[in-house]
């Protein structure tokens, strides 16, 4: 006997992700899922972002790590709410773990919630967390072939950050090849070529992100006026 099912295997994760999305949308809060390999610069990008946007925008962070709270410790100095999820071996975050930690935040007091996913270029791109969009970070030390090798992430990302451009002279990273590969995979995605440690190129990233966050804040203000 054959029983037809025709169902998304990750249905459970998808349903919870929609619940997260609806909750955050009702609070007019932006959630950004940051995905990269280990060591590409997710935490450093968050540090720079907290320094520059932190004074004007209320930031919260969910730190996904297999073990330890070292990334969260690095962000502590910005006095922002941070919650750590240790996956204990799991190579990605899922929507259930995100939903569970949302109650630790005062969502009314946040404009943006960054999720630093577990360092991995494949698995996190398969699991919707309920975010507004994904950001892919890749660093020059990893090589210029990453968009071609991991097309799903670079297709899904709403922006790509190429970090550690200051190291290019010391690597065999070919910027022309990287740009043309990325263009072939996702010709519409904005690319920010930056050095998070030196500060090069970050202004463009801050502007782009700021506009996205301001867009959300504006919709909140409009709906508050409507409710008056």
């Amino acid at each position, binding site marked *: *006997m054959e029983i*037809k099912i025709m*169902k998304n*295997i990750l249905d459970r994760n998808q349903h919870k992700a929609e619940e997260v999305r609806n909750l955050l949308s009702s609070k007019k809060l932006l959630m950004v899922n940051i995905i990269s390999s280990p060591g590409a610069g997710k935490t450093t990008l968050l540090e720079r972002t907290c320094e520059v946007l932190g004074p004007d925008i209320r930031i919260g962070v969910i730190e996904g790590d297999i073990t330890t709270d070292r990334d969260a410790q690095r962000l502590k100095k910005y006095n922002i709410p941070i919650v750590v999820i240790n996956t204990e071996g799991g190579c990605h975050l899922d929507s259930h773990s995100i939903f569970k930690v949302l109650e630790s935040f005062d969502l009314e007091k946040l404009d943006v919630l960054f999720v630093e996913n577990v360092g991995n270029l494949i698995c996190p791109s398969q*699991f919707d967390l309920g975010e507004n969009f994904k950001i892919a970070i890749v660093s020059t030390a990893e090589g210029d072939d990453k968009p071609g090798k991991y097309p799903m992430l670079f*297709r899904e990302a709403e922006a790509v950050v190429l970090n550690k451009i200051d190291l290019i002279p010391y690597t065999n990273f070919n910027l022309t090849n990287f740009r043309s590969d990325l263009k072939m995979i996702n010709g519409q995605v904005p690319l920010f070529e930056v050095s998070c440690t030196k500060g090069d190129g970050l202004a463009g990233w801050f502007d782009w992100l700021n506009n996205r966050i301001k867009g959300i804040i504006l919709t909140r203000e409009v709906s508050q006026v409507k409710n008056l």
Partner: protein
Amino acid sequence: MHEIRIAEDLSTIVVDTAKREKLLNVTKVNICFGKLVQIVPEIFELAFREAVRNTPASNAMLHIEILSVEMRCMKCGSDFHLIDNQYVCKRCMSDEIKIIQGKELFIKSIEGE
């Protein structure tokens, strides 16, 4: 290693369905993956075997169908097949592309008695 989590979720669906349909022995599980999901069938098979251990599906054969990546140009409307990672319209060269197949991850059916 997202194969492990996906195999676990698949096992839950298979076991729940078998229970609901009163199947004592699931003989085959038919699933479909899009190429973009980057599942390694051999790893998935191992993860699935582990996930269904001691369930009515412990001896089930896993049949995996891999779907190619198909796209639609949002500018000229033509459909085309992905070749060499080029997400660009073959006809008008636009990069306004929508993936219409290749991201699937679904269970089609189970067989059993």
